[in-house]
Structure formats: C-alpha cells, structure tokens
C-alpha cells in the first residue's frame, strides 16, 4: 500500500469518526424535548446579559457587627435593649448554624452566586449552606415552612437583584443592635434577640463597581422594629483558584460552649469529633 492510498484511508476513517461524533451530539437524547432546550438556551442567553455577579467569589469586608443608627425600636424592644447584658462568649459556638441574616454577615469564607434558569443560588462557604432565590415569579406561601435560610423569591430591578425572604425557624440569630465597645475593646458588642413570627428580609443586591458587591438589607419585624431597619454591607470580588468555594462542614466541638454557664471551654476531648485524625475519627462506628 503506497502512502497516497494510506492517506485516503486515514481521511475516510477520520471523516467517519467525525460524522459519528456529530450524529451523537445532534441526535435527541431519550426524553429530551428540543423546544424546551431552545427555551433554556434563550434563558441562559438572557442570564449572560445580566450583571456579572457570577465570576469568582465574594469576600465580606464590612465589620461583623456593623449595625449603624438610627434604629427605631418598638417599646418592648427598646426595653430589651436597655436591659441587654451580653454573654461572656459567642452564641455561635458548637457548630450551631446561625441562619439568616447572620450567616450572610459572618464572612471569613466567601460567598458564590450561581445562576440558573428560574433561580439564582448563593453558596455561603461559612456553614456551607446554599440559599435559593426563585426568579420564576412564584409567590411565597402565606405561612412558609420554617427554615434557617427562609424561602426566597427574587426579581431584577434594573441592575439590582431584589430578594424577598420569609419563613424562618425560631433558632435563627437576629442582631437587632450594637452596644458601644466594652472597656478595652475596639469594636462594638452585638445585641441579639429572638425574632417575631413575621420576620422578613428584603435584600437589594447590586454591583457598586465590578469588584464591589453591595447588599442593602431591610429587616421587617413588627415585634422589634417600629419602622423597618435598613443597613448596607459590602463584599469584594476575588478570582483564581485560591478563592474557589470549598466544603465547610462543622464537625468538631472540642471548643465547647456551655449554654448553662455561658462559658467556653477549650480542647474538651469528649466533645472532640472529627474524621481527620486517622483512626481517631468518631463520626462513624
């Protein structure tokens, strides 16, 4: 066989492989609905023209307990604030998930927006939870099933994503104010309070500039705020592998907060539960 014939055979073979591959791509999959795919492609195209919340991740840069005045409390809440005595230690120990809104404020690990047709997901690396903002124009039930993150619907107003969330379990951590720094401290002390049954958040998210995300959150709780309270926080965009989202599973309570005494105890071995110390892992039998 001379080289010219060998070349023709190779060409025919390549063409056959290419045709087979194209056929595999274009042939409908079992159960696939081409019209629906076309609609999805159109929706993805629309997402591609939205403000780019999606690239990279966002690191919180606003102080954790940022809670600027003015705050207009109900009479009951004002009395609560007046008599508030902060605990010796954080109420966030023992792997307790703070829920909304505090999980958005906590920072240290980034957040990541993930768009999809009919939804925007927001992964919060601290506590590794994901909020789902439904953009398909559904309504929130009058009495939503209570969750830590709430039920959220969202829509775009110009370049801003407006997220409306309701339906929270009683265990969510709600900061309602901040006291002046304690003697010797540089920063304020948070005031936490159990929320009322109609707690609602409306968050207005927009890009202040390409690398700065600003979220203004209005809190509605008629048991605490005489008028809805609004504050604004910022995040900075980071790209690259070092800023990719990671798993964050809170699995170890060797720093143990005793709710009875309000004290934190360090390296308490009978509370130490983790899978990463070789044969010592205690999460499984």
């Amino acid at each position, binding site marked *: 066989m001379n080289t010219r014939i060998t070349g023709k055979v190779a060409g025919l073979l390549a063409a056959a492989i290419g045709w087979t591959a194209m056929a595999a791509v274009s042939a409908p999959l079992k159960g696939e609905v081409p019209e629906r795919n076309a609609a999805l492609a159109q929706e993805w195209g629309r997402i591609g023209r939205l403000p780019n919340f999606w690239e990279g991740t966002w*690191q*919180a*840069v*606003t*102080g*954790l*307990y940022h809670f600027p005045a003015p705050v207009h409390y109900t009479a009951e809440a004002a009395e609560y604030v007046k008599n508030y005595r902060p605990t*010796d*230690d*954080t109420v*966030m*120990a023992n*792997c307790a998930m703070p829920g909304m809104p505090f999980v958005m*404020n*906590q*920072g*240290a*690990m*980034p957040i990541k927006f993930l768009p999809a047709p009919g939804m925007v997901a927001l992964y919060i*690396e*601290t506590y590794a939870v994901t909020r789902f903002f439904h953009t398909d124009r559904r309504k929130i039930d009058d009495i939503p099933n209570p969750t830590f993150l709430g039920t959220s619907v969202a829509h775009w107003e110009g370049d801003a994503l407006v997220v409306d969330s309701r339906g929270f379990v009683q265990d969510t951590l709600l900061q309602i104010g901040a006291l002046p*720094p*304690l003697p*010797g*401290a*540089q*920063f*304020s*002390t*948070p005031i936490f309070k159990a929320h009322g049954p109609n707690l609602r958040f409306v968050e207005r998210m927009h890009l202040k500039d390409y690398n700065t995300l600003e979220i203004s959150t209005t809190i509605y709780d008629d048991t605490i705020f005489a008028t809805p309270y609004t504050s604004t926080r910022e*995040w*900075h965009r*980071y790209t690259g592998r*070092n*800023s990719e989202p*990671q798993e*964050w*599973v*809170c*699995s*170890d309570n*060797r*720093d143990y*907060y005793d709710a009875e005494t309000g004290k*934190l105890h*360090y*390296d308490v071995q009978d509370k*130490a539960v*983790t*899978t*990463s*110390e*070789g044969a*010592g892992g205690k999460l499984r039998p």
Partner: protein
Amino acid sequence: MKAPTRLSPWVVPCVLALATLWSGPTPAHHSFAHFDMNRTIAVTGTVSKWVWANPHSWVYLEVMRADGTTQSWAFECSSPNMMIRWGWRYADIKIGDKLTIDTHPARDGSPQGSVFAVYLADGRVLADPMGRRVSGDDLAKGPPPVPSKPTGEPYR
C-alpha cells in the same frame, strides 16, 4: 516568661472575642480571651496528633522541657478553609514531625495556645490568621510576609 518584644509588625494583639477583633468579617466562632494575644512563645516538640477539622484545626505536640520532663501541648488553628487560602495543606504536618510553633499561650497557664506561625522541619513557614485582626481582603489575598524563624521567646 515575659512578654516578647520581637513581634513582627503584622501581629496585632487582641483581647476580646474573635468577632470583635477583626476589622472586617470573621469566623467569629468563639472568644479568644482564653489566649494572651499580647504574648508569643516558641514551643518546639514532636507532633502527636494533627486534627484538620472545622471550625478549627488543632496541632498537638509532645514537648521535652529543660528539666527533662515531657509536656503535652494543644495548639488551636483557624478553619482549614482559611488556612488553605494562607498556603496550608493537610500533608504539611504528619505525626512524628518535629516542629516549632509561635503561639499565643493560654492565660491560665495551661499548655494550650493559639497558632501564630508554624515552622516546619523543611524550612517552610505556615502563617495562621487565628485570632488576628484581618479583613476579608486579607483572608483572600493570603498572609503578609511571614517571619523566617520563630519570633516568640523559646519555651523551656
């Protein structure tokens, strides 16, 4: 032991809850009042346990004291997620490794500390944001220049 005087300028003391320390956000998992963040000591020993876990990692050392006795120390680190972004890998530390840790010791004298930097046998230095006043930007960008050798007073 007296307070060290050779702290690098990027060490910022803290005395209150972690949440109140950071200029920006923080994991705010718990207070660091347990540790004297104004003091740094350098503890050298052999790794007996290495816990890579959330919300905090821990390194345990068996430390030979100057008087010939052995003491077990526990060192608290940050979340692995933050440590990874500051250059740490789980494989950096193994049981049996000999290393030195710059640490802020417990106020009550117990053999515990919060990690400031770990000096590995191969010369690498791992910095930890544990209890520092750093912002979200600092966490994303990684550690500032780290010292090449322990800065704390040697623990004997």
